């Protein structure tokens, strides 16, 4: 896979940054010039096939500053009326490269721009290329700012791509905003809960966790998806431990154990969850044993579902 080459990934990251500067009207800035120089350095370790592919990514990213144009090669090869059927078929079979290429015919007559950005994000994620996946989900958010699903997915992608501090900062802002939709509150709480397992802790972690606990308690009754309720309760329990609210922690872990079983992860994490409840109830919260157990629970949260699926 292309993403296995460190320089390929580095170039992708630089490309995403450069397009962001261009979108901000800073194409001629010193930062943009410096990024191009770093790109030249990375090019020395790329093969031609990789350059071609990165050029195609650059063309895709042009949508973030409204400069995207169709790829004449794809337009010449693929009849326009076939595109919807081909994309649907490629989507069903997870042929991410094909989807990306088909979208280069200019898909504005098929989908709204936010949907094109969303599909591109899913495709790059499917290819394991997270820097563009985040960029396109952020583009979907930019196009439709009040879509909480896009925001939740962008948050998850940021975390998956190990940009922990950025994910944490966004989650903190969502939790502080009274207008944030319940699902995004739960997702944000999950990010903060996972952050409690990392060292060093952010200086404001306890403050943020103290905000998160009541917000999650308010959001959970509004959620209908059992898998999201389960993940939300586990997150709430971990956050309550963080702020030394052992009653809230016990309640959350107990309630999580009572949620209808709907996923493999839920079953496989139940032993760890039981153990966590037992440790909290017996006054062993924040001991080395409990922290080790809590880390395993937090790992479960990483694979927990988000609001929308493909």
């Amino acid at each position: 896979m292309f993403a296995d080459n460190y320089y390929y990934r580095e170039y992708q990251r630089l490309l995403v940054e450069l397009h962001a500067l261009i979108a901000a009207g800073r194409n001629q800035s010193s930062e943009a010039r410096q990024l191009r120089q770093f790109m030249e350095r990375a090019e020395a370790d790329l093969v031609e096939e990789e350059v071609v592919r990165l050029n195609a990514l650059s063309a895709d990213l042009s949508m973030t500053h409204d400069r995207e144009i169709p790829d004449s090669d794809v337009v010449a090869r693929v009849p326009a009326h076939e595109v919807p059927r081909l994309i649907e078929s490629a989507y069903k079979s997870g042929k991410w490269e094909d989807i990306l290429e088909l979208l280069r015919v200019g898909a504005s007559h098929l989908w709204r721009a936010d949907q094109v950005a969303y599909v591109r994000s899913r495709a790059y994620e499917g290819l394991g290329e997270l820097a563009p996946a985040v960029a396109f989900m952020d583009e979907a958010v930019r196009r439709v700012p009040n879509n909480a699903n896009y925001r939740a997915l962008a948050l998850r992608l940021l975390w998956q791509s190990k940009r922990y501090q950025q994910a944490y900062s966004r989650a903190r802002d969502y939790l502080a905003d009274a207008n944030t939709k319940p699902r995004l509150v739960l997702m944000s709480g999950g990010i903060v809960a996972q952050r409690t397992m990392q060292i060093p802790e952010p200086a404001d972690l306890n403050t943020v966790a103290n905000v998160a606990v009541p917000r999650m308690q308010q959001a959970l009754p509004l959620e209908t998806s059992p898998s999201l309720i389960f993940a939300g309760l586990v997150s709430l329990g971990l956050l309550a431990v963080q702020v030394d609210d052992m009653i809230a922690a016990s309640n959350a872990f107990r309630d999580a154990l009572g949620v209808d079983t709907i996923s493999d992860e839920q079953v496989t994490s139940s032993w760890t969850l039981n153990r966590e409840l037992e440790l909290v109830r017996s006054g062993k919260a924040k001991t080395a044993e409990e922290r080790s157990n809590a880390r395993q629970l937090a790992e479960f949260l990483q694979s927990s579902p988000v609001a929308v699926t493909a």
Partner: protein
Amino acid sequence: MYEDAGKPRIGDDTCELGVRFAGHRINVDVIVDASGNVVMDGGGMSVFPSIVPADLKRIPKRLIPLRFANRIPGAIGDDDMKIWTMGAGPFVSEPVSATLTLNVTGRSHGLICPAHAMSLTDLQTELARTQPDWAVEEP
């Protein structure tokens, strides 16, 4: 390359008419030996065959000025740069003058190198002497 009075700017920095050597902060185009001569290892100034779409697909898009993004998908280059062309012959490894030769390194990339042993100063002079032969050719 950047422009200077209607022609490519002569220099030893990125996107200038010349080569970069040891000490450049980003890249090195040629290696110079202890006696000041350019090592004849095929290194030189990067060039591309043409601006037809098939070649443009293979040229890093940072080299195509952003102002062409409405014609060339993904262009993200510095708008102070221009695209220049020299000569009309085939893009093959062969001499381009008595002192310079083209070394084709890939389908869409080549290097203008010294045709025989010469000092770094002489190579820069020879490259600079091609300045009148370059013309802007933009898509």
